[in-house]
């Protein structure tokens, strides 16, 4: 159905503005509105892009940090394990160094006796707290006490050093008491084979 153009114009008849016009400065409001939209578009998209990049960087760093933390924990665990092994090794070393054979010492003491001197008794006791320290008790039937000095000279050659010596005469015998401290000879630590070589024939 065709409608006459004049009739359509009738719908848009001129109307009188009922409200008073806004002040001129109010014209800035829509301009500012469009500017704010532009601001949001530029600043917002830039900010969102920066935020996304930063988040990506953060996630990468967190991942790397997590891997680093794992390495640190593993290194710490390895160190702790090594320290435990060192403690145990030190205990074993202390035992080995404090368990030097006594047979060579006894043989050397007996060999050092001159003719006419007899050993009434000979005792060597290891100090349980300081195993490299020995308590020597020697009772001799001898003409003179020079024998004791000669014996101790031989003992010193075996890397023992005596201290707190006491000497007395009981029932016609010389009684000698001393503590012997074994000094580990310089050089490499002894192996089980080296230790076996220290044993001598009586």
């Amino acid at each position: 159905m065709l409608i006459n153009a004049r009739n359509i114009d009738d719908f848009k008849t001129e109307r009188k503005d009922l409200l008073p016009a806004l002040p001129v400065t109010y014209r800035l409001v829509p301009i500012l509105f469009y500017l704010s939209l532009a601001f949001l578009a530029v600043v917002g998209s830039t900010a969102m892009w920066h935020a996304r990049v930063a988040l990506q960087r953060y996630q990468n760093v967190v991942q790397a940090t997590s891997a680093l933390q794992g390495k640190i924990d593993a290194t710490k665990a390895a160190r702790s394990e090594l320290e435990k092994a060192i403690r145990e090794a030190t205990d074993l070393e202390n035992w080995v160094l404090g368990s030097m054979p006594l047979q060579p010492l006894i043989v050397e003491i007996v060999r050092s006796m001159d003719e006419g001197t007899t050993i009434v008794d000979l005792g060597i006791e290891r100090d349980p707290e300081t195993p490299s320290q020995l308590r020597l008790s020697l009772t001799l039937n001898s003409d003179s006490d020079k024998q004791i000095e000669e014996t101790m000279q031989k003992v010193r050659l075996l890397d023992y050093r005596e201290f707190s010596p006491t000497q007395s005469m009981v029932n016609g015998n010389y009684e000698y008491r001393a503590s012997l401290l074994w000094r580990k000879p310089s050089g490499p630590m002894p192996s089980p084979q080296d230790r076996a070589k220290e044993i001598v024939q009586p």
Partner: protein
Amino acid sequence: MNTKQLAAVLLVVSIVLIFQFGMSLRTRATAAASQADAAVVEQEKLKTQLLAEEELLDDLRKQSSDLTKFVEDWEPYFAVLEEQDEAETTISMAVRAADMLNLSQRYEQVPHTINNKSNDSLPILVRSSLVFDDSYPKLLNWMGEMERIEPTMRVGKVLLSRGSRGNDVKMELVLEVPLRAKSPKKK
């Protein structure tokens, strides 16, 4: 307030809200960047810490290399706790095989302490108290042989005195065998 003024106010409020929203996006981006920067700083700290830990571990390995080598040589000779019966048997068999007059033998297991502190690595000692009465060479040979074949065994006490016959010697001997808390490597 008429509708024109109301529309203008609404637009102004919209402008403010849009501006605030834009600024909040910018603040959020700045916060994310700061968080990433902080994480990078933390990562650098961890890198330094890892370097220090690795250096510490290397130093410890270098310092303990001699000790480790020493213990590797000796470790197989240490009996373990599970072998305590074996330790006693070894000594008692050696006593029987010695063909010497054995007056007494006693075995006991005692805790290994130093300064009243338990030794965690070698917690138990098998202590053998033996008394022999025989010739001096046989006794000292046997004692030397025991110290040779059991290098970790130690003589805790030895007392030589006149024996009951002729030139025989009475030997009171205390042997101590340490037992390890864990299995050693094979010999």
